[in-house]
Each structure stands twice: as C-alpha cells, then as structure tokens.
C-alpha cells in the first residue's frame, strides 16, 4: 500500500508530502534532542508512565516528533506532558536527552539507565520486547503510536499523523515462542480478524518478531543483542491477481 498523505485534494496531499520531505523526522528529533538537553529536562516516574513539565518550545517539538501526550493542567507558562514507558526510555537511553527521577521532590539525582530498565520491567512484563520493537522502528525514523484503537500493539506513520495516515498496524511477538507475549496470532481467526480490520482502514499488518538470541532480560546490557525480524501478513486474492506479477 502506498503512503496516503493527508489533504482535501490531490494538490494538498502533494503539499503534505513535500512539507514532510522538507522537514524529515530525523531533523525534528535532533531538534527535540538538543532542546531537551539544553533545558536539562527532568521527568519523574508516576506508576506506569513518566510525567514532565516543559516550556513552550519543547511542547512544540514533542508534538512535532510525536512523543507522549499533553496533560491539560492550567499553570502559567508550564506544560505538563505524559510519556509511555517506551517513549521515556527511548528519550533517556537512546537519545540521552531526558533524565528521570523517582519522584518530583526527590533529593537524589536522576535514575541511571539500568535502574530505569529494572523499574519499567517490573511495571510491564513485556517491556523488554516492546522497547526493542519501539526503538527498532523509531531508529528508522518511523513515528510510533499506540495501536489500541485498531486492536494491535502499535501503529506506525512515515511522518507526523497530521500529514500522513499510518501505514502499518504492528503486533509484537516473541521470536522463540510465537504468541507467548500477548497471545496474538495463535489461531487463524485472529489472522483473519486482524488483517480484515486493518485492511478496512488501509493499513498492513506488520509483525515484529523480537529475538532475544538466548539472552535474558535481567540487565540492560542484553538489549544490544536482541534482533528483530519483520514480516507483513496480508490477504491475497487470486481473483484480482491473475495477470499482475505477484
């Protein structure tokens, strides 16, 4: 399926595509990165998400880069933002532009990567797999959001969702034992269901098989040894493909 840029007519779709090309996601993310570093932004843990306060500039960049969601609290010149554990860990560990404390008023310094890994893992059993999947896509500059609305784990966009429709619905599975993560794609009916639902909203099902390659997830160090295999699952229609090359 070709990317579907947003716009009322062909011309505005073209414009959306041109704008995205002019301002690639990698550029936006590095702007966000340096802005967060400069302002020494520090978030704090709140149960299974991370909160932070930011200035107008970072608010704009977080939105452009599609990290987290704003929390509406009326407070002058201060904006509250909420990040998922994957987003927070990506900004901390991969982009090194966010620090996280255990709580707002903590006297102790920010938690180190290893401590955060342990905390997130204790909050979400599947965190090692989901983080690997999330960072795998983010590192290729795809925009990653929750796929809950479409019955999948993630959805991915090739640029900001204001400019383009998402192309893939993603399920994260374990390479070793299929389906032990989230119980998905164990039976044909689930394949039918998922491809049909995603097909109905013009998305392709992308499965990410995360392979731990024999490593456990006790330490953050093992993360570098994880690999990801990508597969799309789609229905094929023999009625429509008689002459086309497949």
């Amino acid at each position, binding site marked *: 399926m070709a990317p579907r840029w947003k716009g009322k007519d062909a011309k505005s779709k073209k414009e959306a595509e041109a704008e995205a090309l002019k301002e690639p*996601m990698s550029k936006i993310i590095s702007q966000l990165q340096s802005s967060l570093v400069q302002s020494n932004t520090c978030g704090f843990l709140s149960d299974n998400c991370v909160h932070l306060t930011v200035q107008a500039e970072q608010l704009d960049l977080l939105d452009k880069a*599609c990290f987290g969601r704003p929390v509406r609290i009326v407070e002058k010149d201060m904006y509250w933002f909420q990040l998922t554990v994957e987003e927070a860990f990506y900004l901390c560990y991969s982009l090194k532009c966010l620090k996280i404390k255990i709580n707002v008023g903590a006297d102790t310094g920010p938690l180190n990567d290893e401590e955060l890994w342990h905390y997130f893992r204790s909050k979400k059993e599947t965190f090692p797999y989901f983080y690997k999947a999330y960072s795998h896509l983010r590192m290729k500059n795809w925009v990653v959001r929750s796929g809950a609305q479409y019955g999948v784990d993630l959805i991915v966009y090739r640029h900001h969702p204001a400019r383009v*429709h*998402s192309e893939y619905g993603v399920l994260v599975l374990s390479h070793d034992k299929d389906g032990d993560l989230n119980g998905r794609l164990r039976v044909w009916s689930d*394949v039918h269901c998922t*491809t049909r639902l995603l097909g109905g909203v013009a998305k392709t099902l992308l499965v990410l098989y995360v392979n731990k390659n024999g490593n456990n997830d006790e330490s953050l160090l093992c993360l570098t040894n994880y690999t990801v*295999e990508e*597969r799309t699952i789609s229905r094929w229609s023999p009625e429509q493909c008689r002459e086309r090359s497949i």
Partner: protein
Amino acid sequence: MEGNKWGYSSNEDTSNDDDDVNLPNASDEEEDLHFTSHSLPKSQFRNIKSKARWNEEMGMAEVIEKNGKMWVSTGIVRSGKIYTSFEETLYFMELGALHLVDSENRSISIIEMYEKVSSRMTGCCWELFEAYRHLKSLGYIIGRHNFAWSLKSIRSSQKQVALEGTEESKQIVDMGSKVEHSISKLFGELKINELKPDFDIYLPDSRFRKSSPGDPNFLLYLSRGHLPSRAEIETLEKQCEGIPLKICLVTEGRVSFFSFDKVELPALP
C-alpha cells in the same frame, strides 16, 4: 504560521480520520450470503469428454483418450503418456470433461472419487482439492510441488534436477514399462505430515508448455489444522528458493490465501 498545520497529536485527533477510507475488501462482504453467485468461481461445463484409467496403486489416472485443450496444462507427461493426479482427475470429472474407468473398464463415479479422496495413495485431501479447484477454475496452472511436468522439463530446469530430478533421471534409463512404477514410487516417498509446499503455481498463461514450464510464480502450502508458526513458515520458505510462498486456508468450503512476507521497513530520512 506552520504551527496551525500540525495540531496536537493525541490519538483521538489524528487517528479517527483513518477510518473513513473506502473498505478495499467491502466487495466480499456479501459473498458468503449468496454462495451461488460469487463464492465459487464459475465453471464451464464441457461437452467433449476425455477418458482416463484410474490406477489405484499409483493414485493417478492414465489419460487414454485426449479431447480438449486442458491437457496442455494438466497432468504430467511420462514416456508419451499423460498421468493426472487425484485433484486433476476429480476436477475434470466434476466439469463433465473426463470419463474415468478402472482397470476392468468399469466406470468410476464422482461419488466413488469423493470416497477415495482421503485414502493415502492419492496424496490429496479434501481441502487441498478445494484449493486446487478454486485456483484451477480461475485459470491458474497448478502442479504438485516439485513434480516435473515432463522429463524434458527436468533437463531444462536446473532446479528440479537438483531436488528430485536426479532420482527420476536415473529412472529414465530403464523407463519403458517401469514408468508407472517410478511415479508410484514418487508418491510413496511422500510422507503424510511432511512440512513442504503442496503446489507449484503459474499465473494463467496460454503459452505454458510442460516441456519448459519455467519457475512457478508462487508456491502454495495448505494449512492443515493450525496456523503455521514462524518456525514452520521458515522451514517452508527454505524449500521455496526465493519463489514467493502463499499459505492457504480452507474453512467450510471457503478458500483464503495469505502471504507472510519477510520485509525490511526502509529507514526514513
């Protein structure tokens, strides 16, 4: 100001308009309700009959009277004779294009063939037959996976020599009357639950020749009972040598096909 175009990226705002696309598969929405119209591709009934003799040991039929063009892309050729697999035989019987007899020239009815379908020697099963019928009636050219269309095609295709052809090539030498034996041996070697593609499939092509079939457009595997695991799909793919694999599912007469393709999402700018 550019800011206007961005808007907030909360899921509620951005994702909902993903929903108003036209459903690409809306057309098959109604399909199941009227099985006479769409669920089965229309089959043409034939007036001209060919005749074949069923060989129980081989699980195949030897065509003894050829009529019609279907023999260009149906059946395997061995020492000048055409042999049809179970699914090919039954398909043309259902179309009324083939008259089948046993070794004593007694007619074999379609009902008798339905009863035979699951017997071990046919190398077939009902769901596999349904998959065959579905694709064949759309004009696809279908052969059993790695069964050479003719012995000439073995020489023309390196691939099949490497796989199964060597075994067969040896048998070319003492061909003659032993041809039947060699084919039934081919069948006999198939293990029932062996994980391997079922069919080699070519797109509809009027220039198809059994003597030089070329590489199939894709290979088909019939899912039996359960969704194949990632590891099983990989085992199947290893046998495909780069030719795309489709996985087929037959449920209550409804045939669906899926691709499980290895991909690599591009790194974006």
